[in-house]
């Protein structure tokens, strides 16, 4: 079996969340996903391992069936501005935490008024359940997320995945600290589940209304920009405090580009390894379009096949490269790919 073993079934979350959302606010963001190096997700404990076929490639990722699979929405739940879509996926493998899926509504996608949305949208898987369903988190910020957010139980959609490389387990027995912003909390849910009690999760939101999303990750510590819930200030302040207490940690982050940029800087300052679940405008999700590149120390890499989880050490600067390319984007609703 796979290196990923049992784990494979976990669920990470990541890009999904929207891969496209927007950075602009810290909170909102991006859902991304990560990737992992070898065992990424693996470890785990398996939560939802429902998929019979977990056939990893040499780099350990769980492979996607080639086919874009027709499926059905089981439920939609609202957490403040965030929508959790639960879709059936009886034929897919159990994803690795940090992998993502490309989602498309079966109706009114590329054929309706204004012909948008046209391309599928990328979302980190937030959780994979034993009943063969997948959870995705999104925020309605553009035509794609808007169309997906209005789907009701029973509505048809297509999904392709799991794609990309997910999170890798902490190095050298380090304590995992998960840092999420806005819709970017998605991949941290499945990853936190896989890591179990050892993981500390810090979540940042714009305000108390957005912080309703924190209910998706019980036990997380919360920061809001306006102090209307939890710590008043940036989630990265909480991270700095934690690392100040105990730097033997590995940081996993997903959120808007400015947050990721700050996390990367903090990791550098404290000499702590980190993995960022990033997002970028993405047309295909499987390496065909070359549109989702981000600059790294070794040049541009495609987030869809070389990420979405990128090691902090490999990245030069998150912002503005990622934000500018965000599919669902920097400018929600209007441009790019939201």
């Amino acid at each position, binding site marked *: 079996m796979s290196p990923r073993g049992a784990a494979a079934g976990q669920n990470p979350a990541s890009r999904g969340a929207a891969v496209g959302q927007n950075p602009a606010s810290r909170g909102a963001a991006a859902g991304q996903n990560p990737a992992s190096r070898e065992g990424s997700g693996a470890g785990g404990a398996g939560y939802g391992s429902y998929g019979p076929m977990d*056939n990893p*490639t040499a*780099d350990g*990722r769980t*492979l*996607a*069936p*080639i*086919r*874009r699979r*027709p499926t059905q929405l089981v439920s939609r739940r609202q957490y403040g501005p965030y929508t959790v879509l639960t879709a059936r996926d009886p034929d897919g493998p159990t994803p690795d935490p940090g992998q993502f899926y490309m989602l*498309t509504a079966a109706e009114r996608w*590329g054929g309706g008024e*204004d*012909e*948008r*949305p*046209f*391309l*599928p949208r990328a979302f980190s898987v937030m959780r994979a359940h034993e009943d063969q369903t997948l959870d995705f988190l999104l925020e309605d910020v553009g035509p794609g997320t808007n169309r997906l957010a209005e789907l009701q139980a029973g509505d048809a959609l*297509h999904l*392709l995945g799991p*794609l*990309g490389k997910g999170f890798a387990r902490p190095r050298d027995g380090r304590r995992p600290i998960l840092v999420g912003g806005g819709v970017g909390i998605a991949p941290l849910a499945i990853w936190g589940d896989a890591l179990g009690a050892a993981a500390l999760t810090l979540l940042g939101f714009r305000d108390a209304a957005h912080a309703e999303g924190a209910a998706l990750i019980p036990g997380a510590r919360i920061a809001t920009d306006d102090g209307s819930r939890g710590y008043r200030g940036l989630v990265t302040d909480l991270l700095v405090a934690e690392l100040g207490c105990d730097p033997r940690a590995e940081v996993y982050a997903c959120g808007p580009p400015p947050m990721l940029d700050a996390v990367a800087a903090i990791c550098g300052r404290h000499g702590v390894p980190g993995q960022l679940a990033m997002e*970028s*405008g*993405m*047309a*295909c*999700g*499987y*390496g*065909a*379009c*070359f*549109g*989702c*590149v*981000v*600059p790294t120390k070794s*040049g*541009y890499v*495609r987030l*869809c*096949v070389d990420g979405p989880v990128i090691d902090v050490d490999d990245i030069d600067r998150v912002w503005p*490269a*990622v934000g*500018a*390319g965000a*599919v669902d984007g*920097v*400018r929600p609703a*209007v*441009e*790019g*790919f939201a």
Partner: protein
Amino acid sequence: MIDFCGIPLAHRIVNGSGTFDAIAARRAFGDAIVEQFPFAAFVSKTVTLEPRQGNPPPRLWELPGGLMNSIGLPNKGLAGYLQEDLPQLAELPVPLIVNVMGSAREDVARLVAAFAEREEVSALELNVSCPNVKTGLIMGADPRELAALLDHVRPHAGDKPLIVKLTPNCASPAEVAAAAEQHGADALSLINTLRGMAMHPDRPGEPWLGGGTGGVSGPAVRAIALSQVREVRARTELPIVGMGGVQSGRHAVDLHRAGADLCAVGTESFRDPLAAARIADEASMLDEAFPANAARGTEVVRL
């Protein structure tokens, strides 16, 4: 079997250059992508003499009915392609067509000569949508410029079929096509993307795309592709690879009836990696000139 320039193909649907990376797809989907390869031939991304990083992001912009990209032809360069990519692409179950581009005739000739001697390569496609650094003219936008390029390059191609990828961004693609035929092209492919741009939402007057302008593709360009294929067909006898917004068997059949021998799928593959297999099957039910695709289980939709 379909005969295209002497190359036997299982059906009429191929990919547009730069719209499918078989090596990356294998990383995502495993060997299944090889076993169920959706195209009758594989057309590689453009290869240049030297490696290229491609354009800075953002590279994509979704449009009403399509997509605009400014990818900028990232590739490993000739040496990297020969060493790393070609051995992997040779494992595909279909003929390989290598697309090349250079900004000087001598560069194009070197590329063509390098691939002409490789048995893994069934045909060459010339990307002529780039400026000649010496004349400043887009090589494929002017009949005389293209004629001079082909005169220089054709002798280096040996017995490999040479396909010229026409650009729609010129006064008369049909005139360019006629020049290509007279100067040794074996086939034509069209249309390449149409040049476009999007304004940056936050920076007045600045473009959104890192490359400034981009190429428009997808359903938005389908009508243009149909008219240009028909126009080019009226001027030449050469085999034509028609492409532009093909999403269904109906669209492929339309292009075929306008004059295309093969049909390429590009942007639609971004929405569904097996779109081309579905399109081949749909077309086979509409027109007996289209053999079905061998890949199984594609969802067939009649439009």
